[in-house]
Each structure stands twice: as structure tokens, then as C-alpha cells.
């Protein structure tokens, strides 16, 4: 075969020659003989000076490698070409080298000098690939050379080369573990690298070389958190997994104080650790000190760094990469407070649509999670329903999850699903379903009988496997309450004739033996049949026959004595020694002979002891001690290199280790820096500080061109990005010029108006950042609070992303943002005021700005309320409209003890809330019982159901000891009784509180005449009407108390009875008056009509007509209670 013909049809040639070979086992030999000659022409081609020939030869060689054929004899010929100019030939030579260098170490050394030259090449791609190959050659002699090369590359200008250096570290480590110390130094250096390109790779190296050196992470923790979103996906997975472990060693368990957290601890903190902000760090330190001091009596306060991690990983749940989503999910599962873990469920359920392998892994993890946190996946129950087309392994896992999710409320739907599964053609799956039913039955006692009956029906199934599985499960269930089910045992006894599956037969025999008192007639008969077939049974069945015989002998020796002896004799000569042993042992125990020892007296106790019912447990129980998402978790066995997930520390280690001091070199002129950054970062929230000045010329221009054009595109589209970068650079500045604090402040104030007017598109995120930034200063100048609060309320409102309100919110935002120009002036003046400190009280003037803005926008709305209020108060006939405050029920928001002296009560004042008619006014009364003053009482971090809104009360600056203050806030509950959760903050503490309205407070009274009332009622019939019969309390049979009780329970106004007949002569009051009340729900304005018709003997009928059925039902309950107690 000539060389030219061979390479001309390389494709055809290789496949035709290769085809018959690659299927074979390479060990079968005789393959290479035909190759041998071909190798000769390959050598020839490699030696030629034509690149195309060389390339062709290399291609064929690589194809051989790919098929797993030996090409090692070509090594000398190939290695000569390592210096070839043609880049493709070169690459293929590299491929060859890496594959065979280990086998031919001496020859491989010939190539080293080429790589060393390559390491100095001006082209970063060549430098990088030289390092890649050099580090991939597993030749021990060159370890020092590799070490040197890695060290050099670690400080290369190009981040790509640095990335390659990071990749090279684990390679060298696996070749020579002795180099560990030096490598750790390099890792430490690379960890400090600020480019996203390097971050993932170096953390990978860290994990492989020195995962125990958690101290190396401290200084880089915040940087890693902030870079995370921009790191490539694979790096993200590694970093997130590593940070999970880190967080477990450094922070406190957020679920220590579960009761408190459940109240509403789901909120994000207002205090975010944006890194490298010195001011903040100080405050943080203070905080930390406090925490440490009061650890014992204070509820848990999350470390801001902990929060930072949770906050920065959350957006990654939206990643397209399943591994990233899983990594974030496990991070939340292991680190987040209980209330927040729920967010991962949705993302995990989404992954279930992915490839079946992904499904398999995700379901395994969901199964583990659903045991610990069942509530999390309950809303997604239906997503785990099984399709007949799912692969069996997926079906079984889904079944597992469904079983874990079963509880009293959903068991009926789950069982209905199971019923369809039982009919499946996939018998393994049916068996798994039967077991699942068994588990549901043991866990939920309500359905035990139903399940048992269902399973008994399965006993007549045609498929033996199904019957057998049912028998096994029934056996387990019966053990729980055998007395009740002797008929089932009888039924099962009959089955012994038909069932052949050993496990099932054994189960039945055990059951009969165990409960032979319940089936005294049948049991000996079964034993008789079994004795007949004893020799043909499986071992497991034989053992149970012996068992049955022994038990019967003890309870009913008259009938079974001979049978037992017969069985024992048969067993004596069995082939299986286990059975022979058992027979001998039992004979000694139960058959009284003169020789038999003391034990036979206790035989009854031994055999007929009460056995505890088995606990049917999920195989996924307790698997969560493995880090979720890991290989070890999946296999439920520790895989090599698995890093144990540490337990939470008792007390938090010193958090200040994560503070980063500012390196000298960053103190370049800030202006220059800013400019640079602005150009450089269209996407990154963080600086590439280091790479900036040191980057090689080509790479810099690369990234610059990329970003410049995109940042040039900021019309309004990418406004937010530019904003972001500005923000980031600002924070940078802050750290640099900490000594020039004064200056900075001024600059900031000047900058603010511009920014704000621009930030039409800026995200809330930034707004918060803003807030944060102003926070440290707040402690010294409280006068800013109004501005602060405003932005807060805005963000909280815009959080409720209801489309209707969205537009409104936006409008408001715009208004708020176009307003600022006069603001800085005001602020300045206020600051001056503050200095005098005499005018403190001024700040108490009903904080104008937060109120003013909404009034503008809500003008029309509030007008309406005003008018309504007018008409209401005018009507003489509605005594309940303005309820005397004494009848208002007040609720406790914060107890004196949990609040450490501060107690808060709230009541629904039933006054229209003037800034927004759609809100319910909540009047709060703060009492300071402590000995010291409480300052800066305000609300933060409002957590609401979608659609709900809150208007906060103006901050209370000072609440002296022993004093009481009141404030009114407005909450739009969206006509639901969902609680509004928020944090009540003082200058030192934050309390999680929640306000949940009784349904009666979700409405406001309206005035209707009787005729109008009847007309409206006529339109709200059918589903919208709820009627309930009741017997009135003895004390409340007169008109006055009824009216009073109803109006206390709900904010309704009475419909004057007979008011339309005013002209006619007054009738004597009827014996059984009908009382009517009317109101509208606060948010949607739906009518709520209540009728109480009294009858003889205190009997009465309550009718509620309301478009909103939920409100109607709840209202009926409340009023019923009010009237009957």
C-alpha cells in the first residue's frame, strides 16, 4: 500500500481497516501485525518535509489512539515534529505526547526544551498550550521544571495563562505529592486573582490539593461570592460546593432558633456585606462583638457574610446548567434558614424535564430533601406523577418522592394515583408501588385500613409477583394490629396453595405462626399441607415451616405434636446446615425431655414474645449527612476524596478574618481607575482590578473592544449596567479613600441627584445597595432616614410584582426619582440641624416626604376615600362606622420579653388609611419597658405574598424609657388573610414580626338601604351565598348585643331595617327581627353582605353573601363564633 493512496482516502481507509478491529478486545492479539507495515509509511511521512504529509500521518496516528490501538512504536518519529511550525501538526503531536510520554520517559525528555521555549512565546495561546502539555507529561524527572513553569505562569500577564497554571497544579500534585507546600503557595497567590477566568480553576486546584486549608479562603471569601455570577458554569459548581463547606465551618446554624425564624425570618437582611467597604466592616465588627456577648440570650442574627453567600447564589438557580442549579440547591439546603429553603424546589422541579440521567440524579436528591423538608415539595406533588413512558428507575424514584410527600391531606390523591400505577405492565414498578402503599399505610394511620383492604384485593391479582409483594407488605401492616384482621390472615392462609414466590410463602407462614391464636382451626391445617411439601420448598420457606411448627407445638400441642415431630425429622436430614441447625435447636427447646435444660421452660416466652412492628423507612432517610448533589450521596457511600460536610460550629469563629485590607497599589488616582473600570465592565459587578494594569496588550484590547461597544449601547437599554459599574467603582473608591471620608461624602451627595434621575431603570438591587451605603452614615446622621425609608418602601412595593400595581409603582418610582433635585439641599440643611441637636424634634414632624409622594399619586384615590368617609359619617343610621376604640381588639406584635423591653401591640383602627384607600390601617402602640432609650424604630425587609403592599409608618427616632408611642401603618392584604411579615428594627436589634388580619378587618363598612341590600343580595346567590344555622348565646339574644358582636367581629355597618318605609307609620318591632350588615372588602371593593335572622328560642340563621367565597366562608366562621360564645 503506497503512502499516497493511504492518505488520500484517509477516511475510508481508516474506517475500513479499523472497523473489524476496534470491536475486538485488544488483548486478543494479532492485530498489530497488519499495522506494522503501515507504521513504516507513517514514519516516512513524518520524516518528510511537507507539512501536509506530516499532518496526514499525525491524523492517522491520532485516529489510532482514539480507537485505543497502540501507536507507541512511532514515538521517536513523532517527537521530532514537536517543533513543527504547522499549528495543527503541533497540536496533534501534543496529543500523542501526552498519551505516550509516561511509557517512554527518556524520549519524552527530548521535547521538553521546545516547551520551555514555548513558555516564553509572546503569543499567550502558545504559552498556555506549552504549559498544558508540559504539565500533562507524567515524567517525574521534570517535576522541578514543571514547578518553575507553574510559578512563572501564575504571575503571567494573561489571565488565560494563569488559568492554565491553575489547571496544572493538580496535575503536578498527582505526579509528586511532595510538592504540596510549594503548590499551596501558588494556589494562595492565584486565589487572590481577581479575574473570573481564573477563579473556577484555582478553586478546583484548591479542592484537589489542599481542601483542608480553609484558612486560605478567608481573605478571598467575599471576592468569590461577588465574582460568582460571572464565573463560567463549571467553575461555579466547584466554587459553590467549596463555599458550602466553608460556610459550615465559619457561620452559625441559622436554624438554631427555629421558632423565631418561623415567625418570618425569611426576609433578606437590609444589611448586606458588600465587600471591601471599611465603614461597613467596622459596623460589622461591632455587631459581631455584640453577637458574641449576647449569644446566650439573643436570638440568632445571621452573619452578613453568610447572607452574602445566600444572596449571590440565588440567581444561579436560573442557570441553564443543571449542575449549577443542583449546587445552589444543596447550598440552600445545607446553609439557609428553614424559611428560605423553599426557593430551590421550583428550580429542582424544572430540572425534572431534562435528560433522564439528570432526572435520576435530581430525584435522588429530591428524595432525600423531601424527607427533611416535606413542605418544600408539596406544592409540586403533581410534577412527580408517573408516566408509563418513564424508565423504571425514574418511576421508582418518583414513587419514593411521592411516598415521602404523603400526608393526611394529600394521601387520598396519592392513593388514587397509586391505584393506576398498580395496573402498570412494568411489574418491578408495580412491586415498588405496593411497597409504597405499605409505607403510606404505616405512616398515616388514617388510611391504614383502606390500604390494607386494597392490598388484600391485590391478593387475587393474576400476577404472582404482585401477589407476593402484597403479601409481604400486608404482613408488615398486620403486625401493627393483628387482632382486628384475623379474616385477612385466614384469607392469606388459603393463598399458600397458589403462591409460589418463596418470600411470600415465608411471610404467610410467619404470620400464621405468629398469630395462630387468631386462626386456631386453620393453622394446624396449613402446617399439615406444608409438612407434605416440605422437601420441595426453598430454604427460606423451610425455616418458616419449622418456625410455624414450633409455635403451634407450644400453643396447640395436642393437634400438632406429631406433625411437628415429622417436620423436625425432615429438617434433620436437610441439605442446608442452617435448617439442620435450626431443627436441632428447636427440638431441644420445645420438646421436653429429661435432658433438656432450663431453657425449655421459657420456650413460650422465647417464641411467642411480642414482636415490635417493623418500621417501614425510606432508603433515603439520613442520607443528608452526605453533602447533597455529591457522588457519595448518590451512592450512599463515601467516595474517594469526599470532603465531609462539617457540623455547624457552636460559636462562630472570628468573622474579621474575612476583612480585606486594601493593598498599596490600588491607591492609584481614582479618576483614572474609574474610567478604566467603566470601559472594562459591561457585565461584571466586580473589578478585574489586578488584571487591569498588568494585562498584556492584546488581551486588554480584546476585552476592551468587547465591552466598549456594549457600553456604548447605553441608551436606556443597558442603563442599569452602566449604573452598576459606576456603583462598583464607587465602592472601590470608598475603600481607597477611606481617610478622605469628608471629601467622599460630599462627592457622593453631589453625585446622588444625577444618579437618581438616571436610575429610572436601575434595579431594586442597586437601590438597596444604595441604602446600604448610606447606612453607615445613618448612625451619625439620622436625619437621612426619610430618604432612606422612602427607597425602602419603594423597593418593598415594587417587590410585589402584580401587574396592576406594577405600573403604579413605576409611576411612583419615577415621581420619586424626578423629585430629588431639591433634596440634597434639604439634606445639607438637615445635617446642620442635626449638629445643633436641639431640633431633634423636628424630625418628628410627621415625616413629610414619604407621605407627600404617595399623596400626589394617589390623589384621586384618597379623594374617593375622603368622600366616602364623608358620606359615611353623615349617615346617622350607621352607628358602627366609627367604632369606639375601646371595642377594638388589640393584638400583640412583640412581647416585652422577646423584645427585650420593647413591647408592641397593634390593632386594626378601622379608619380609612388616607395615603392609600386600598390599605388596612394598622395602629401600633410601642411601649418601651426597658431602662434605656430605644432609637430608630422602623420597619425593614418586608416579606409579603405577591400583590400585597405595605406603607410603613414614619420612623420613630426616639422612644425614651417608660414612654409609649403610636404609629399607623397601612397594609394592603389583597383581601387575603395572609400574614405580612417584616422586621421591626431598633437601633440595636431586629425582630421578626408578622401581622395577620382577622377576616373581619379586611373590609370597610358601606351604607346601603334595605332595598339596595336586598337587590345586591339577589345578585350574590348560589355559590356566593353561605348560610349557617346557629343557636344564639343566651346573653346575646337582644338586638343590641347581636349588632355589637357582629360589628366587633367584622368591620361592617348596619343596614337600617325598615328605613325605606320611613314614610309609612312605624310598625311595632317584629318579634323576630332580621339584622343586616354591609361592607366592602378593602382591596377589591367586593360587597360583603351579612344577614342574621333570629327565630324562636334563640335559634337564628346567618347568611353571608360575598363574591369572594374564601372571605365569605371565613367570615361565617368568625361571626358564628362571636354570636355563639
Amino acid at each position: 500500500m503506497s503512502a499516497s493512496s493511504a492518505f488520500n482516502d484517509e477516511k475510508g481507509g481508516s474506517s475500513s481497516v479499523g472497523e473489524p478491529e476496534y470491536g475486538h478486545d485488544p488483548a486478543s492479539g494479532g492485530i498489530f501485525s497488519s499495522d506494522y507495515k503501515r507504521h513504516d509509511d507513517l514514519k516516512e511521512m513524518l520524516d518528510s518535509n511537507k507539512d501536509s504529509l506530516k499532518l496526514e500521518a499525525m491524523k492517522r496516528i491520532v485516529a489510532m489512539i482514539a480507537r485505543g490501538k497502540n501507536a507507541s512504536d512511532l514515538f521517536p518519529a513523532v517527537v521530532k515534529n514537536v517543533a513543527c511550525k504547522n499549528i495543527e501538526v503541533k497540536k496533534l503531536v501534543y496529543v500523542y505526547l501526552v498519551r505516550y510520554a509516561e511509557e517512554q520517559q527518556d524520549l519524552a525528555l527530548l521535547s521538553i526544551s521546545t516547551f520551555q521555549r514555548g513558555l516564553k512565546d509572546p503569543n499567550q495561546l502558545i504559552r498556555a498550550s506549552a504549559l498544558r502539555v508540559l504539565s500533562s507529561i507524567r515524567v517525574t524527572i521534570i517535576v522541578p521544571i514543571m514547578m518553575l513553569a507553574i510559578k512563572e505562569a501564575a504571575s503571567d500577564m494573561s489571565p488565560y495563562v494563569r488559568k492554565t497554571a491553575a489547571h496544572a497544579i493538580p496535575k503536578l500534585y498527582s505526579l509528586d505529592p511532595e510538592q504540596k507546600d510549594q503548590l499551596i503557595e501558588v494556589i494562595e497567590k492565584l486565589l487572590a486573582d481577581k479575574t473570573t477566568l481564573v477563579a473556577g480553576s484555582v478553586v478546583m486546584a484548591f479542592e484537589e490539593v489542599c481542601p483542608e486549608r480553609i484558612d486560605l479562603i478567608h481573605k478571598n471569601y467575599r471576592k468569590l461570592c461577588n465574582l460568582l455570577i460571572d464565573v463560567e458554569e463549571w467553575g461555579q459548581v466547584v466554587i459553590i460546593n467549596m463555599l458550602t463547606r466553608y460556610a459550615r465551618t465559619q457561620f452559625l446554624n441559622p436554624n438554631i432558633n427555629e421558632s423565631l425564624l418561623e415567625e418570618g425570618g425569611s426576609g433578606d437582611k437590609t444589611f448586606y456585606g458588600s465587600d471591601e467597604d471599611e465603614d461597613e466592616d467596622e459596623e460589622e465588627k461591632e455587631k459581631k462583638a455584640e453577637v458574641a456577648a449576647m449569644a446566650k440570650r439573643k436570638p440568632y442574627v445571621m452573619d452578613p457574610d453568610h447572607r452574602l453567600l445566600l444572596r449571590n447564589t440565588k440567581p444561579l438557580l436560573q442557570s441553564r446548567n443543571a449542575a449549577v442549579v443542583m449546587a445552589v440547591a444543596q447550598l440552600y439546603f445545607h446553609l439557609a434558614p428553614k424559611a428560605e429553603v423553599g426557593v430551590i424546589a421550583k428550580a429542582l422541579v424544572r430540572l425534572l424535564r431534562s435528560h433522564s440521567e439528570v432526572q435520576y440524579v435530581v430525584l435522588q436528591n429530591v428524595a432525600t430533601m423531601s424527607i427533611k423538608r416535606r413542605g418544600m415539595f408539596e406544592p409540586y406533588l403533581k410534577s412527580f406523577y408517573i408516566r408509563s413512558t418513564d424508565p423504571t428507575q425514574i418511576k421508582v424514584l418518583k414513587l419514593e418522592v411521592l411516598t415521602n410527600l404523603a400526608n393526611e391531606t394529600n394521601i387520598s390523591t396519592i392513593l388514587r394515583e397509586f391505584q393506576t400505577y398498580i395496573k402498570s405492565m412494568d411489574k418491578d414498578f408495580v412491586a415498588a408501588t405496593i411497597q409504597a402503599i405499605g409505607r403510606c399505610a404505616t405512616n398515616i394511620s388514617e388510611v391504614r385500613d383502606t390500604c390494607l383492604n386494597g392490598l388484600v384485593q391485590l391478593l387475587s391479582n393474576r400476577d404472582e409477583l404482585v401477589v407476593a409483594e402484597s403479601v409481604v407488605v400486608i404482613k408488615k401492616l398486620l403486625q401493627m394490629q393483628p387482632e382486628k384482621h384475623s379474616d385477612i390472615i385466614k384469607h392469606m392462609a388459603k393463598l399458600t396453595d397458589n403462591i409460589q414466590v418463596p418470600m411470600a410463602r415465608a411471610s404467610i407462614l410467619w404470620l400464621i405462626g405468629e398469630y395462630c391464636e387468631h386462626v386456631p382451626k386453620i393453622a394446624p391445617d396449613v402446617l399439615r399441607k406444608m409438612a407434605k411439601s416440605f422437601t420441595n420448598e426453598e430454604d427460606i420457606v423451610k425455616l418458616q415451616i419449622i418456625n410455624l411448627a414450633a409455635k403451634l407445638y407450644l400453643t396447640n400441642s395436642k393437634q400438632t405434636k406429631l406433625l411437628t415431630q415429622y417436620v423436625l425429622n425432615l429438617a434433620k436430614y436437610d441439605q442446608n446446615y442452617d435448617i439442620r441447625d435450626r431443627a436441632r435447636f428447636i427440638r431441644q427447646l420445645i420438646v421436653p425431655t429429661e435432658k433438656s435444660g432450663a431453657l425449655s421452660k421459657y420456650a413460650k416466652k422465647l417464641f411467642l414474645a411480642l414482636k415490635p412492628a417493623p418500621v417501614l423507612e425510606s432508603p433515603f432517610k439520613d442520607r443528608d449527612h452526605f453533602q447533597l448533589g455529591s457522588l457519595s450521596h448518590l451512592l450512599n457511600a463515601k467516595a474517594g476524596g469526599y470532603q465531609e460536610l462539617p457540623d455547624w460550629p457552636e460559636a462562630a469563629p472570628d468573622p474579621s478574618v474575612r476583612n480585606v485590607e486594601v493593598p498599596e497599589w490600588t491607591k492609584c488616582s481614582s479618576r483614572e481607575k474609574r474610567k478604566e473600570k467603566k470601559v472594562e465592565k459591561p457585565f461584571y459587578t466586580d473589578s478585574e482590578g489586578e488584571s487591569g494594569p498588568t494585562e498584556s496588550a492584546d488581551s486588554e484590547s480584546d476585552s476592551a473592544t468587547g465591552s466598549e461597544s456594549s457600553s456604548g449601547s447605553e441608551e436606556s437599554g443597558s442603563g442599569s449596567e452602566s449604573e452598576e459599574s459606576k456603583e462598583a467603582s464607587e465602592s472601590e473608591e470608598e475603600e481607597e479613600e477611606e481617610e478622605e471620608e469628608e471629601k467622599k461624602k460630599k462627592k457622593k451627595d453631589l453625585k446622588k441627584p444625577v444618579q437618581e434621575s438616571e436610575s429610572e431603570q436601575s434595579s431594586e438591587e442597586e437601590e438597596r445597595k444604595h441604602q446600604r451605603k448610606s447606612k453607615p452614615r445613618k448612625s451619625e446622621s439620622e436625619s437621612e432616614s426619610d430618604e432612606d425609608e422612602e427607597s425602602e418602601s419603594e423597593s418593598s412595593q415594587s417587590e410585589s410584582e402584580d401587574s396592576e400595581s406594577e405600573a403604579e409603582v413605576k409611576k411612583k418610582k419615577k415621581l420619586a426619582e424626578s423629585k430629588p433635585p431639591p433634596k440634597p439641599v434639604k439634606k445639607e440643611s438637615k445635617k446642620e440641624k442635626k449638629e445643633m441637636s436641639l431640633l431633634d424634634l423636628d424630625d418628628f414632624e410627621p415625616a413629610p416626604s414619604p407621605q407627600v409622594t404617595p399623596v400626589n399619586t394617589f390623589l384621586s384615590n384618597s379623594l374617593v376615600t375622603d368622600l366616602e368617609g364623608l358620606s359615611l359619617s353623615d349617615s346617622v343610621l350607621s352607628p358602627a362606622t366609627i367604632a369606639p376604640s375601646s371595642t377594638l381588639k388589640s393584638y400583640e406584635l412583640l412581647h416585652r420579653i422577646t423584645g427585650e423591653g420593647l413591647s408592641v401591640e397593634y390593632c386594626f383602627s378601622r379608619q380609612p388609611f388616607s395615603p392609600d384607600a386600598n390599605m388596612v390601617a394598622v395602629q401600633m402602640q410601642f411601649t418601651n419597658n426597658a431602662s434605656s432609650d430605644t432609637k430608630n424604630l422602623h420597619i425593614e425587609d418586608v416579606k409579603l405574598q405577591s400583590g400585597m403592599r405595605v406603607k410603613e409608618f414614619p420612623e420613630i427616632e426616639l422612644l425614651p424609657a417608660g414612654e409609649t408611642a403610636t404609629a399607623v401603618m397601612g397594609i394592603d392584604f389583597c383581601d387575603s388573610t395572609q400574614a405580612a411579615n417584616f422586621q421591626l428594627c431598633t437601633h440595636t436589634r431586629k425582630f421578626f414580626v408578622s401581622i395577620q388580619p382577622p377576616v373581619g378587618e379586611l373590609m370597610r363598612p358601606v351604607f346601603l338601604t334595605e332595598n339596595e341590600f336586598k337587590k345586591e343580595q339577589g345578585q350574590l346567590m348560589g355559590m356566593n351565598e353561605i348560610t349557617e344555622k346557629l343557636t344564639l348565646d343566651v346573653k346575646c339574644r337582644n338586638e343590641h348585643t347581636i349588632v355589637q358582636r357582629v360589628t366587633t367581629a367584622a368591620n361592617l355597618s348596619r343596614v337600617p331595617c325598615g328605613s325605606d318605609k320611613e314614610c309609612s307609620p312605624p310598625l311595632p318591632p317584629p318579634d323576630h327581627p332580621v339584622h343586616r350588615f354591609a361592607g366592602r372588602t378593602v382591596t377589591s371593593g367586593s360587597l360583603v353582605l351579612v344577614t342574621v335572622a333570629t327565630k324562636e328560642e334563640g335559634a337564628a340563621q346567618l347568611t353571608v353573601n360575598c363574591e369572594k367565597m374564601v372571605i365569605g366562608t371565613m367570615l361565617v366562621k368568625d361571626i358564628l363564633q362571636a354570636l355563639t360564645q
Partner: protein
Amino acid sequence: MIHSLFLINHLGDIFLEKHWKSVISRSVCDYFFEAREKAVDPENVPPVLQTPHHYLISIYRGKLFFLSVIQTEVPPLFVIEFLHRVADTFQDYFGECSESVITDNLVIVYELLEEMLDNGFPLATESNVLKEMIRPPNILRSVVNTLTGGSNVGETLPQGQLSNIPWRRAGVKYANNEAYFDVTEEIDAIVDKSGTTVSAEIQGVIEACVKLSGMPDLTMSFMNPRLLDDVSFHPCVRFRRWESERVLSFIPPDGNFTLMTYHISSQNLVAIPVYVKQSINFFEAGSCGRLDITIGPKQTMGKTVEDLKVTIHMPKAVLNANLTATQGNYTYDCTTKMLVWDIGKLNPQKLPNLRGSLSMQTGVPNPEENPSLNIDLKIQQLAISGLKVSRLDMYGEKYKPFKGVKYVTKAGKFQVRT
């Protein structure tokens, strides 16, 4: 992390191996073959296997197994996701991912694998970056290369690798600037015997084909973004912007890519476009069965249902089917027991019906369960969730691009229980 990769065809032949660390003998695959034997269907092979010294993580794609060998702890999804990315890359490069295509392009495949992983850790997985380093095969280029001695391998580091937007190549130029988006929604549903919906979800995906010069910055907004509460994005989408304004703002990769996927869960109301009336009975006597299926439109929003197809996996006992279809035609494969009824367009005036008898194996007990019906369908110009793109704006470039959005609804895992 990933130690070695073996590609195995459905016959169990290893036709490619690649090692990123030291060489592992291919005998390690024997454990896999064992498991493969045990699982009857290739789908049922456990994706993760434990062997005495290694862990094997595999995926099954296009009748091929991608089997990776792992030695130490690594998140299994990491490997699975990567293997799928490898398969995607092959598909992207060669148009399909099959054994013949891979063996034909063995060298390019090898070079790709070399670039995608370094020491077992992913290096470059973005298709745009890879394409700059290793050019996809095409006839013209191979002719030119043989004439000029040029190569398939790029000489410079792709700029994407270094920039902040690694997914886009620099210096893109097109004569016709165009951006097309396909909104595809798939309905996953389980409908029970009585016709009530047990569960229904929508899986949506927006695929984009963007051929725009320079560095365009696109903003896509929706008429009803509230629908989308469970989404995942291509890395190019600015997440913050979505959070705050519910618009998609992104610098697109060049060419085809998946912009976002979304999931509308069973908690929402999902419209079911067709209803099915069916009765399948097996009779003990005479060993035969009867089948009668009618399909009609339910909630189609006034659009026609096309490409309607019903697939039934019959129980083993069914030997043959003797049916008549009023519309379309049916086939019954006796070996796989698959009954496929290809209907085509659904005519609301004259509902398609398939009825007739099934002949059963004698002496075998009747199947207890009726087989469930899998339905395929397609509705053009409709996203069943009601999602609509309201506008697409471009910033950063001067020219005016052609823009287009296409909607289509398909049946995903649409199953009717009987």
C-alpha cells in the same frame, strides 16, 4: 475530575477512547456492560455505577453511550451535564451525533475533546469559542485546505475566551442582519380515563437564531411577563434586569442558541388542546379485543391542530390489529407492539376515529391494564400559555435588523390513561 471517556455504540463496541489523565484500561467498561445486560432497556442503565476502583457515569444519547470514568468525588450532575454538552457539541459540529459521523471525523472529535477538558476539568465548552479554535468540517474548506495546506486549527486564542462575553465571537459581519426567535411550548399532561386532567405543565423554550454584525445589545420584552415565574437563561441574559423589569436584555451569541427555557407548572391552569374518547376492551372469550378512539378539539384558541399522532404501546398479548381509520392511517408493529395512528390535521367538523378489533394470543390471560395513549400534536402560531413577545429592540449598532418571532405549541409527554 473526569478521568477518561469511552464512546460505546448500542452493540457494546467501544469505538473511541480518550484519557485526560493516566490511561485506564478499557476493561473497566466490563462493569458497565454487565449493568447494561441487566437493564433490559438502554434507558434503564443506572447513570452512575460503582466499581472497585472507579465510578462510571454514563449518558445515553442517540443510541450511543458516553461513558466517563471517575476516580474521586465529583458532583454526578457535573459530569452528566458535561457529557451532554459534549454530545451537543458533536451535534452542532456534524449535524448529528451518531457513531458513523464520529468515526468519520475522529480527529476533529479528538481535538474537540482535548480542548473541552484539561486534566478532567472543563476548559472551553462554549460552541462559539470552540468553533474559532477548531473549525467545523465543511466541504469547501477541506478542498481549500488540501490545496493550500491550511489547517483546521485556529492560531490565536479565541477572543471570547478572554472577554467578559465568552459566548460571542468578535468581528462578526453579515450582509443581511437578522434575528429570529422561535417560541416553542410543549404540553406535558396526564389525562385520566374520564377525561379529567391529572396534571398538566408547559415547558417553553425560546430558541434564537441571531445573525447580527458587531456587538448588538438586544432587549426583548413580553406582553405578559407575569406568566414566567420559573425560568432559566442562557448566560448572556442579564439576570438583574429580568428581576427588576421583566425584560430580557442580552448580547447574543452568534448563530443558534437557546435563549431561555421556562416552566409553567401544574399549579397554573393549562389549556389542553384536544380531548380523546376511547374505549379499549379485551375479551376473555374469543381472545380478541376492541378498540375505538375518537379525537376532538378542546381548547385550541381557534387554531388548527396539525401533525396529530397517537401512539399506543400494546400489551404483549396483542398479536395484530384490524382497524379502520376515518382519517390518516395506522400501523401496528408486531415486534415492538407499537400501534401508531398518524392522523395529520384535525378537522373539527369531522372528527377522526379509529376503530376495529385486536387479535390476541390465545391461552394467555388478558392484560389487566389498558395501554395508555401517547399523543403528539402541533399547533402553529400559538403559544398555548398565552406568552407573546411584545417587542425586540437593538442597541449598540446602527443598522436595522430583520426581526421575527414564531410560535408553536407541541405535545410533550402527553399521555391519556385508559
